[in-house]
Structures are given as structure tokens and as C-alpha cells.
């Protein structure tokens, strides 16, 4: 149980999901064309946003939630590396990367947990 059932769960969603997300979109509308896309502050903002995303990826792979934790860390790392390699080799195809990573995860997970 998440502890966020019923009305309280939806209130939490608005408070810590909707508001922190849409405040930036609203600011984007209000700021409008006042900000140059190539300005220094936006270069930094984009770098921070990208790093947060990288943090999310690393956290799920290293400190896996739920049943993903049942797959050994070595397999998770091998799968994401193979997926990335396939993405690079197959014309930067997102589909090739994801499909390869998934196949490696399931195949290696199956062999190692039998």
C-alpha cells in the first residue's frame, strides 16, 4: 500500500505533482518570448534538467524497485549497456535500443535465476 489512497492521494497528486510541474509551463507562457533560447541561464537550466533525468535512470537501475530488484544488478547493467550499444549502432533508433535491452534483461535473468 502506498499510503496515498482515496481523496488524500489525489490532493497529494495536485500538490506535489501538478503544481510543481505546471508552474514551469505557466511561467513559460508568461515569460513568452522574453527569454532567448540560447541564453546562458537556459543552458544551465537544461543541463540541470538533463542531470535530474539521468539521476532517475541511474536510481532505477542501481536501486531497482519492486520485482526489478529480483534481477541481479550485473544483469541490469549489462542490459542497459547492450541497449545503449544497439541504439548507437542501429542509426540511433530508440526502438532498437529498448528492444535489445529488454531481450538481454529477460534472457540473462531467465538463465541466471533458473
Amino acid at each position, binding site marked *: 500500500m502506498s499510503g496515498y489512497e482515496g481523496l488524500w492521494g489525489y490532493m497529494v497528486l495536485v500538490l506535489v505533482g501538478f503544481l510543481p510541474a505546471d508552474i514551469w509551463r505557466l511561467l513559460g507562457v508568461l515569460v513568452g518570448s522574453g527569454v532567448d533560447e540560447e541564453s546562458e541561464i537556459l543552458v544551465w537550466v*537544461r543541463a540541470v534538467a538533463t*542531470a535530474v533525468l539521468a539521476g532517475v535512470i541511474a536510481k532505477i537501475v542501481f536501486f531497482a524497485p519492486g520485482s526489478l530488484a529480483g534481477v541481479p544488478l550485473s544483469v541490469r547493467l549489462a542490459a542497459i549497456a547492450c541497449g545503449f550499444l544497439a541504439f548507437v549502432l542501429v542509426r540511433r533508433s530508440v526502438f532498437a535500443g529498448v528492444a535489445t*535491452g529488454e531481450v538481454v534483461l529477460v534472457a540473462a535473468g531467465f538463465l541466471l535465476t533458473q
Partner: protein
Amino acid sequence: MSSDANPVLLSTVSAFLAGLRASFLSVFVFVLVGTYVGIAALAHDYGFSLGWIIASTVLVWAGPSQVILISALGAGATLLETAIAVGLSCVRFLPMVVALLPLVRGPQTRTRDLLLPAHFTAASMWVESFRLLPSVPRERRVAYCNGLGLGFMLSAQVGSVIGYYLTASLPPLLTAATLFLTPMSFLVSTVRNARSLTDRLALVLGLIVCPILVYYQIGLDLMWTGIIAGTLAYGVHRLRRARR
């Protein structure tokens, strides 16, 4: 898809429908369904209801931020910590909206008409707007964007329903595979979207910094990852420019 680019969009409704149709023909449908299968599987694992997951997609509409939201709340983070992490992960929407609006806005467009396209702004809609909007008449672009955004959101909801019920009925290894969709698809799509060296460096540094912070149990790890890795990458950008 030449019909996506039909220059004679008669009314607001037909522009909206054209946007909707374009979304279902986009390659992002597969990415979105796959991503949201993973997100719903994750949320199911943490005990969230399907209704809550669907509402989170309508309200937040940002795959990576929803993963942060779900994993932070699910792992027992405080509300303040969760809000900061979600907020930081959404800062990227400010420059995205700023960059997109000049393309969406027409001479008659009121600011409040731009709120819905701004809410629909996410990686998928943003990328496809730049590809598709130039061939749409300017006065119909808001409606077209809303159709595009709603279509993408519907695809995501289909993925959520599939993911939620799949993970409840699958053997553990295949549930793990649905959870793995999120980091795998985010990694490759982020690399594809990271055009500048600064963004790529921020990605690599973030991948390294975050596990270290988590290992040493430093609180607000995602926020610090963003600030430390993002600022380091930005510093390298400044150094490189100063040397030129």
C-alpha cells in the same frame, strides 16, 4: 504523411482532429505506450490505484517526472522533498514552452488560449510540433496542438491500463521487464534529444553522481544530482567557450 500537412484546415474542429490524427501516426505512439506500460507497472508495484495513475498522467503529463513522483512517494519521501524533485525535473518545460509558443501563437491568439498547449508540452508533443506545425495555418495551430497533445495523452493512458493489468498477472521476470522499460527508453531518448555537449555531459555526470549520493544516503538526492552534475556540465561549457 502528406495529409498531415493539409494547408486547408477549414475550422478549429477539423484542425483539432487533424492534430489528433497526426498523433496516432507519429512514431511517439510506440514510445509513449511503452513508457507508460513501465510507469504503470512501477506505480502498481508501489500500491497506487489505476485511477490515481491516470489522473497523474492528465495532471503532470511528463513521463520522467511521473517516475520521480511515483518512486519518491512510494519509497516514503516527504511531500516537500517530492515536490522539489518533481519541480526540478520540470524546469525543462520553461525553455521548451518559451521556444514553442512563437510557433503556436497567431495574431489573434489570447494568452489564455496558450495555457492548454503549454500544459500538453512534453518531449513527444514538442518534437512533433516543430515538425508538423509549419504546414498548419497559423490561426489553426492552437487547435492542432491541442489535438496532437490529447492524442499523445490518450496513447499514454492506453499504455497505463496495459501496464497496470500486465504487471498484476505476469511472472516476476516479465514484470521486471516492464519496469525496465522506463530507464531503458529514457536513457536512449534523452541521449537522442541531448543536442549539445553540455547536455550530454550533464547526462553522463548525472548517471555517476546520483548513485554515489544515494549510496551515502544523502537526502534530496535527485535535486543534488541535478545541481551538482548540471552545474559541472555548465562549468565545462563556460571553460570551453572562454578558451576560444
